[in-house]
Each structure stands twice: as structure tokens, then as C-alpha cells.
């Protein structure tokens, strides 16, 4: 019946959810689903700026103490009141989730102790000054302390422990197929428009589009770039898009010797040309980013010269990608001592990022045209990432989604000198190292004042980009499609939230 149908929102998600336990696996499809059932203290708005959720407000009461005022009158799905005890319980549970393949402890490890002041006030102590704590807490979904000591992940999946304060309550989970949810009628905030949500997992791009076209689902995420043009012309459909926090970039190997670069005739080189700044600039300049965005991404991206898109915290105004200039690139190469170019292998995954395989082919074309003979090699993610971690590549494509919405995160993980003990440069797969950047970052991370921190981060970003630490290509756009008559405020963090889908007024 149409009435019932209007009450139901059927969502076509692009990746399978692996668990209903919000603390089991740091994996974006899970986070996307969790936001329906659970809530964090601090949430992100569509543009990935922190906003209050279960916390009404927060402030730094001491350099190392954050105080959060909790929202009163919030009830869990099981009817219990939400209090500071639940927050403490959640923070306590996170590092102890069994067998977690990707632990949420990375978001709570800065906390050295938890102090419950009163049922609606909680203080979180950190070891050092840690300005990022509210942002980290956006990933921490609160569960009721009455679940007892160490609730098992299975119990979440079965629904027994899948209890949050979110706008929807869990009904059922069929692994690999769908999750059914009902509206939480006792929700503290604005009531969702949907009585029922059917959250279906349709990883195949074409199938997802077809499901929308045939009316089997109402709302799909991750619309394939190839279909954007067609769908946007369809009167029965509506699209929503925003620039994502995910950047696609090329790593260049900064080590003294690199495995896949040889001379123009295939001869071995006794050094790594990529350590020469001019070479890196040439390679960056040789790339026609607009062409890639236009032809390969079909407009679903914007060319990028830094980590984050415009409008984000710590975005550097005016730090644009170098203009496409093959002639200048050749000159630079010649100046660096490679008038005949060299040979390089450009690697990348081909089942991970939007159009990943095609992008590296296009880059291969462009590099070839400035005399850098490029062999393009795209392989499946599991093989790729293992090799990338081992440092088996010279130039390769990767992507990075900045979940925190500020440059400290990519700077720390990607650009900072590899320092395993500190967790810095954990995925600095290009082995880039710049003491100046490291220094700026150290200071920034100890600066609680947002304005001052933003400045420092902008400086560090500019330094790294001028040094071509890596070659940024573009920021993807996140695109959703839905049947006409629905609206969605596209989110920069890629998550799809049924509660934010509304019938058009």
C-alpha cells in the first residue's frame, strides 16, 4: 500500500556492514549504519564540522582536562536514561572489544582517565594537551552501561545488545543482505520521517543504480560516476552531492633507491630521480587534473592541491595544484638531468577508489607525453596494499579520507616522518621526511587554541605541498541519488543517514 511505502525508506548501501557492534571495526560502512542506531557525544555536520549530539557542550577546563555537559532527558531504546555512566562505560569498553581487527581505541587512547562529575557532566583527562579529543569522540558511539561487563559482538549482531539512543531502533540483520530498523518514537531530537528503514547492501555499482531505477530502493549512495550524467537527466530522480574529505593522490618514493624507476632505455639507475624536487614538480605539473576530473571522473571530483577541500578547517586558501604545463615539465626534467626522461612503473589498486585504475592510466598517458615512459599496473586491493606497505612501489595511487576534518590527521599519518612509537607517519608509504613539517605538527598538536592551530597546520601543509611530498590529484565528490520527492543534505563524510533524508516540502 502506498501509505506504508511512504513510511518506509529503502536505502541502497554500497558496502556490506560487517557488524552491528559500534566498537568492533573502524570501517566506514559500519559507521554509516551505526549513526542510525547509536549516537556519539559530538557529531559532525554535513560539512564535517563538530556539532553537539549527546553532549550539549564541551570545553577545556584545564590543558589536559575536557569537560562535557551531557544532554538530559535522553533515553536508550530499552527505556533507560542516558547518563555519564554510559559514557564512562563505553570508553572503558572500547579497548577491550575482543578480536577487533580495527580497534576504536585509536579514538580513546588519548584519554588517561574518566571522571564522572554528575550524571550529566563528565570530565576526560588526557596525558598531554590534546585538542582533537572532541573530534575523535565523533567516532565513539555510546551504549548503555547496563549491558554489563564486556558484551559480546555477536549479541549486537543478534540485536540483543544493539541498543543506542539513535533515531532508529534495530529490528533485524541479515548478514550480507540487509538491516531493518524502526523509528525510535521516543527520540529526543527531531523525529525521522520514516517509520521504517530497510538498509540494503548492494555493492555492485550497476546493480545499485538499477535497483533505484526499477524502484526497488528509494535512496542510493556512491552513485557511479558513469551514471551521474544519465541519472541527473532523469525526471523521476534527484541527486545530491558534496565534495568529500577524501583526497586521491599519488605517492612518490622518497628513498635513496627505488624499485621501479630505470633509465630511458631500461638501464639501472644508481639513484632515485624522485628525490629531486624538480622531478617531482615536473611529474605533478605534467598531470592535467582538469582533464581527469572531466573525462574520467565525469565531473564528480574537484582538482586538488592539498589535503582538504575548501571550507574545511585548516584549508590553505590559494594553495592550488600546479597548472598543467607539459612544456615546463620537460624543462624541469631536463634541468634535473633527465632530458630523455626515465622509465617508471605507476601502480595502483583497481577496486578500491572511484575509477582508480582509470586514473593511473590517464596519468600514465600524461607522464608518457613528457618523456617519462610509464608502465601502468593496477592490481586488486589485498595484493596492492600489502606490497605498498612493504615499500615495493616507486609511484602509486592511494586515497585518504580525513575523518576528523582537519589537516592534522593527514599530516600526522601520511606526511610526518615514520616514527612507529608515536604512531606518526604510520602510512607514510612514500617515506617522506621533513623535519620542519614534523616540528610544526608537534607544535600544532599541542596547541589547544583553534585559530593558532589552524595557522600552524596551514603552514605545515604549505611546506609539504611545496616540497611535493605527494602529488594530490583531486577530492572526490560524494553523490547520492534518490527518487524525486526526497531530499538529502549531502555529507562530506560519505555516510548515508536515513534520518537526514526528507520528503521534499
Amino acid at each position: 500500500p502506498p501509505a506504508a511505502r511512504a513510511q518506509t525508506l529503502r536505502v541502497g548501501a554500497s558496502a556490506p556492514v560487517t557488524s552491528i557492534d559500534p566498537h568492533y571495526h573502524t570501517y566506514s560502512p559500519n559507521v554509516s549504519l551505526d549513526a542510525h542506531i547509536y549516537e556519539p557525544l559530538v557529531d559532525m555536520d554535513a560539512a564535517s564540522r563538530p556539532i553537539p549530539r549527546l553532549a550539549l557542550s564541551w570545553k577545556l577546563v584545564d590543558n589536559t582536562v575536557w569537560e562535557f555537559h551531557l544532554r538530559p532527558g535522553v533515553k536508550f531504546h530499552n527505556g533507560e536514561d542516558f547518563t555519564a555512566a554510559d559514557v564512562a562505560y563505553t570508553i572503558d569498553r572500547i579497548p577491550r572489544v575482543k578480536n577487533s581487527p580495527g580497534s576504536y581505541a585509536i579514538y580513546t587512547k588519548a584519554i588517561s582517565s574518566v571522571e564522572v562529575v554528575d550524571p550529566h557532566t563528565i570530565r576526560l583527562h588526557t596525558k598531554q594537551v590534546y585538542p582533537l579529543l572532541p573530534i575523535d569522540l565523533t567516532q565513539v558511539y555510546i551504549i548503555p552501561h547496563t549491558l554489563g561487563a564486556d558484551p559480546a559482538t555477536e549479541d549486537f549482531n543478534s540485536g540483543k545488545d544493539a541498543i543506542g539512543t539513535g533515531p532508529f531502533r534495530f529490528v533485524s540483520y541479515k548478514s550480507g543482505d540487509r538491516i531493518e530498523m524502526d523509528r525510535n518514537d521516543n527520540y529526543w531530537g527531531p523525529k525521522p520521517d520514516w517509520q521504517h528503514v530497510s538498509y540494503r547492501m548492494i555493492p555492485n555499482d550497476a546493480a545499485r543504480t538499477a535497483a533505484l531505477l526499477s524502484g526497488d530502493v528509494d535512496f542510493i549512495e556512491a552513485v557511479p560516476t558513469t551514471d551521474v550524467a544519465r541519472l541527473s537527466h532523469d525526471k523521476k530522480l534527484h541527486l545530491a552531492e558534496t565534495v568529500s574529505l577524501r583526497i586521491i593522490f599519488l605517492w612518490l618514493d622518497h628513498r635513496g633507491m627505488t624499485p621501479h624507476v630505470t633509465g630511458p632505455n631500461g638501464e639501472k639507475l644508481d639513484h632515485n630521480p624522485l628525490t629531486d624536487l624538480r622531478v617531482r614538480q615536473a611529474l605533478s605539473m605534467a598531470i592535467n587534473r582538469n582533464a581527469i576530473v572531466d573525462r574520467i571522473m565525469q565531473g564528480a571530483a574537484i582538482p586538488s592541491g592539498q589535503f582538504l577541500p575548501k571550507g574545511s578547517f585548516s584549508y590553505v586558501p590559494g594553495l592550488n595544484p600546479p597548472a598543467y604545463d607539459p612544456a615546463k615539465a620537460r624543462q624541469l626534467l631536463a634541468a634535473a638531468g633527465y632530458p630523455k626522461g626515465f622509465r617508471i612503473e605507476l601502480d595502483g589498486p583497481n577496486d578500491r577508489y572511484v575509477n582508480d585504475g582509470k586514473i593511473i592510466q590517464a596519468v600514465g598517458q600524461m607522464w608518457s607525453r613528457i618523456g617519462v615512459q610509464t608502465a601502468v599496473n593496477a592490481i586488486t586491493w589485498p595484493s596492492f596494499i600489502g606490497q605498498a606497505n612493504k615499500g615495493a612501489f616507486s609511484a602509486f595511487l592511494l586515497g585518504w579520507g580525513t575523518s576528523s576534518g582537519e589537516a592534522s590527521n593527514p599530516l600526522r599519518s601520511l606526511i610526518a616522518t615514520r616514527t612507529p612509537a608515536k604512531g606518526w607517519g604510520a602510512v607514510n608509504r612514500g617515506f617522506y621526511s621533513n623535519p620542519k613539517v614534523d616540528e610544526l605538527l608537534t607544535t600544532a598538536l599541542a596547541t589547544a587554541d583553534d585559530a593558532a592551530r589552524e595557522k600552524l597546520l596551514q603552514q605545515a601543509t604549505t611546506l609539504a605541498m611545496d616540497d611535493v611530498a605527494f602529488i594530490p590529484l583531486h577530492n572526490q565528490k560524494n553523490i547520492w541519488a534518490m527518487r524525486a520527492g526526497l531530499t538529502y543534505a549531502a555529507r562530506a563524510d560519505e555516510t548515508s543517514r536515513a534520518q537526514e533524508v526528507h520528503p521534499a516540502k
Partner: protein
Amino acid sequence: MTAWLLRRLVQAAFVVLAMTVILFIGLHVIGNPIDILISPEADQADRARAIAALGLDQPLWRQYALFLWGMLHGDLGRSFVFHEPALQLIGERLPATLELAVSAVLLAIVIGIPLGLYAGLYPNSLLGRSAMAGSILGFSLPTFWVGLMLIMLFAVRLGWLPSTGRGQTALLFGIRWSFLTRDGLAHLAMPAFNLALGNIALVLRLVRSGVRETLPLDYVRFARAKGLRPARVVGVHVMKNIMIPVVTVLGLEFGGTIAFSVVTESIFAWPGMGKLIIDSINVLDRPVIVAYLMIIVLMFVAINLVVDLLYTFLDPRVRLEDRG
């Protein structure tokens, strides 16, 4: 009888052992699941903790020994990704896949055999020739391509069938099945047909070729000389003689469909095992892969056993004495 079954059982155990060894070594060489699973922001300690949590810090032989120990106690480990017992994960998806595979094989039988018979009996007829030519379409077009076309036609254009998913299910023997409800059947139709297409072609061609071989033989002529109806001559005398390759292939296809109907399952978002194994391979979720392949290998052993028995059924000259 029991001795013979026992022998087969022991052999199956050896096959399973061999498979697990290959998998442990192979997966180890392919890559490290931690690389894929863990958040890139994790530091060394997180990483070490996750590695330890999954037991990947042990030397490979110990991991294997632990696995064997668990297996002896009926525990095949938990998925790295889902943190659920691997067997349970597979068990949840098995009925969906089984349903799909059975439908696909049934379709292949009901469509492939009659058409093949016809094409063999009347090789020069229009229908016979078109069936042969048409069958080529059945296997030369990639499955994903045909699947999408089916969706575009029947779901998007005509709106007759739902595009994806499994639809409503009903409970039988405590398991959810789609074929028991109208909605479920509607969901089943396209993926089953998509999967069956290649099998139909295969069966059709095998049957035709068999009929062409068998028709001129003396015993067929003798059957005609006895005044039997053509239906009986073809349906019994010819059919029973040509069924061995058909049964072989159907067994293979049935097993193959259960094990690897990945493409169809992902195009039709069918929550079956094929998708599970591919997802698991993509993240190197070893417990699931190992458990899955163990089940599959046992299934193939069983299917092939049944096929071998069918041989003796179909042709008394096939004797399986001393045959594994």
C-alpha cells in the same frame, strides 16, 4: 559397505588437510589481513594488539597447529572481519546459495535436455539449428553483462521482476527459503536464469552430441524394430546411454554454482556464499576462507561421490571396485 564409506571418508579427510595446508601457506604469501583491516591511523601498538588478537603473531606452523586443534574440537575459528564463527556465517548464507544453485541446475535440465534432444533428433530443423546457435550466446556473453541486461529489461524497462535482493522468505525446516513465497520466487527468477544460461548451453550441446552419436547404433534400431514409441526410444534407450557426461557436467556445475556464483550474486545482490567468499578473499579473512573451502571441498567430494554412484546406476558396465 561401511568399510568403503570409511575409506572415502579418510580420503576426504586427507583432501581437507591438503587444502588447509595449501590455504595457510597461500594466504600467508598473498598478504597480511591486518594491512587491509586495520585503520590506517592506528599506531604500532594498536597494530600489534590487533595482530595478537587475531593470532597472527604466532609462527605460521603454530597458527596451523592451533587451527587443527580447534578443528578437532569442532571449532573452525572466527571471522577476522565479522567476529562470528566462520561456520555460522557460512551457514547463514548457505540456503540462499543452495536455492540458487538448485534452481539453476533444474532450469538447465528442464530446458537443456529437451532442446538438446530435439536438436540431436532433427539437426537440420530450424529449431534445432537455432537452439545450437542460441546456446552459443548462452556462454559467450559474460555473465555480468547478461545479468545487467536482464535487470535493465525485466526490472527497469518492464518492471515485471524485482531487480535485486532475495525478497520474502518463508520458514521450512527452520531455514528461510525464497522459493516458498511468490515474492521470493520473483526475486529468484532472474538470478537463477542468469546462472542457468551457461549450463543450459552446456547440457543442450552435450545431449545433442550424445544423441547424434547414439542414434545410429544397432540397439536403437532394435528398439525401433520392437515397435516402441519414438518417445520411449529416445527418452529411455538413447537418454540413458548419453547421460554420463551430462550427469558429470551437471555435478560439476552444481558444485561450481554453489561455490562460485559470485558474479550473479553480486549483480543481483543475492546474499549467498559466493559473495561471502569473494569478500573474504578480498580482506584475506582466513578463518572464513578455510572453513568455506573445507565445506566446498567436502561438498565436491560428496557430489562427485553421488555422481560416481549415478554412473553405476546409468551404466552397469561401470564398476567402481577399487575405485576410490
